[in-house]
């Protein structure tokens, strides 16, 4: 009754052929190159928006792990973003050499992520959202009030740790590396467990998935990405302020993942382009642009609840009349 199987079989929920994996890596390389061109060649407002989108995409890649794969809505990503930015800038201001300050920024974010992970990894869905939201709000309070370190509500200037061209290359490069890492995570056992948690957490637990531990690791991974993105933002911008990392930003990041599509590889880019692009480029009367943004979120969520990437795929499939994969 027992037979052994000789042919190797894939181990992940995404059926892979070697060609599709290679294809994906080629797309990542293309996207990285395009990002580099965009951040170095675009000028003025467009250039600033491109850079902001790219940096957000790095942070969003981390969020895509805990929220996109695991289904856990984390509203703390902007806080990790801010912690990375502030910690690295403060260290830099105290005379620490840049690379050390950068690592310090990421470590500070990881420490915060560990705290959030330990406290909230046993809480379920909506509670988790509220808990991380509140964490984000408290971080904003700290950024605003500890003015001795952080410069208070008006922010603080950031010392130049790397020449701007290096920062821009680092931004594009980090996005590429981040996407590769995300792809590897998605195809690993860890990624499979996250998807199981997202599909049915209780069932996953009864099948042997250590749910709390898996969620905790996902949060810490997201904090790592967020922290590094923050370091890069601070370096490019030359100045950081609490308003860039409030819970509203956290909420916007959360929405970006939903708009792109949970767990898809390029969700951070699609989501980032919609959320950041629209909010920066809609230059209507103050307030009216936000109303338009809100309307866009609602319309997109109602029309393509699975996210834009999934929606586009469905359209492409029906246009080319290929048989739908089951």
């Amino acid at each position, binding site marked *: *009754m*027992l037979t052994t199987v000789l042919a190797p*079989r894939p181990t992940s929920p995404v*059926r892979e052929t070697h060609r599709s994996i290679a294809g994906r890596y080629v797309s990542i390389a293309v996207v990285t190159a395009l990002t580099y061109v965009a951040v170095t060649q675009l000028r003025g407002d467009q250039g600033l928006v491109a850079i902001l989108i790219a940096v957000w995409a790095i942070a969003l890649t981390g969020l895509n792990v805990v929220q996109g794969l695991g289904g856990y809505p984390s509203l703390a990503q902007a806080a990790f973003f801010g912690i990375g930015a502030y910690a690295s800038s403060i260290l830099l201001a105290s005379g620490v050499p840049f690379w050390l300050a950068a690592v310090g920024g990421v470590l500070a974010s990881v420490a915060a992520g560990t705290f959030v992970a330990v406290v909230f990894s046993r809480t379920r869905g909506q509670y988790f959202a509220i808990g991380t939201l509140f964490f984000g709000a408290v971080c904003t309070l700290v950024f605003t009030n500890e003015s001795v370190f952080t410069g208070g509500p008006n922010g603080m200037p950031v010392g130049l740790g790397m020449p701007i061209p290096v920062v821009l290359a680092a931004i594009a490069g980090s996005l590429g590396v981040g996407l590769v890492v995300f792809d590897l995570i998605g195809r690993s056992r860890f990624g*499979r*467990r996250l998807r*199981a948690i997202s599909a049915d957490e209780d069932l996953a637990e*009864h099948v*042997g*998935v250590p749910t709390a531990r898996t969620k905790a690791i996902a949060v810490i991974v997201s904090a790592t990405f967020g922290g590094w993105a923050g370091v890069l933002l601070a370096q490019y911008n030359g100045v950081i302020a609490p308003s860039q990392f409030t819970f509203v930003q956290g909420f916007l990041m959360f929405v970006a993942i939903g708009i792109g599509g949970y767990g898809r590889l390029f969700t951070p880019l699609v989501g980032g382009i919609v959320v950041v692009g629209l909010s920066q480029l809609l230059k209507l009367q103050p307030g009216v642009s936000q109303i338009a943004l809100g309307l866009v979120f609602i319309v997109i969520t109602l029309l393509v609840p699975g996210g834009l990437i999934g929606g586009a795929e469905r359209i492409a499939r029906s246009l080319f009349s290929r048989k739908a994969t089951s």
Partner: protein
Amino acid sequence: MTAALELRGLTKAFGGVRAVDDVSLTIEPGHILGLIGPNGSGKTTLLNMIAGTLTPTGGTILLGGVDVTSLPPHVKVARGIARTFQTTRVMSAWTVQESLALAGDARAAAIDAAEHVGIGDLLRRRVGSLSSAQQRLVMVATALASHPKVILLDEPAVGMDVEETDHLHRVVRGIRDEHGISVIVVEHNMRFLMSLADSIVVMATGRILSTGRPDVVRNDPAVISAYLGG
């Protein structure tokens, strides 16, 4: 020989109600135990405690002599206690292979489990597209894939016709014979259970009413009155 599973004075109280009251039980390796009783007798609660879904209010659970009483479900699975569910719970959007891969660490274990349960040719199919009986077999295969020492089957034959039930019968017998795994089966389908189980435990109002070989238990007047008396 150490018992595969031993329950000592296991109790679960919800407020003032004792759903399971001081249950003690020993199961040898490679033994199929049938668990029956009228609704509300505590069978599912007992199963839930063994699997880790619920924490006992009193008593101990020993797996191969080791205390596993209050461990969370995923640790129990790692130690060797696996379960299926009364209502079909599966990852509908996944393929059979992906679902099994979640439970078993090695690729081969997942495939072996599927073959053993008789769904080896369904590996690439989406679980949601399978028939009800096939989905219930996926649950059994999932439990098998984690290399358990004890499997808990909660009404596995629900919704199955005669042919499918016979197949399940062979599968469970095979699990015992080929792997030496002990099985606890909660069932209402008496024909299925009486010919399958090595011994039967009857529960009523949270306590064990009777234990013994199927033919003995089925003729026990106390058991008959428990079912008829309600």
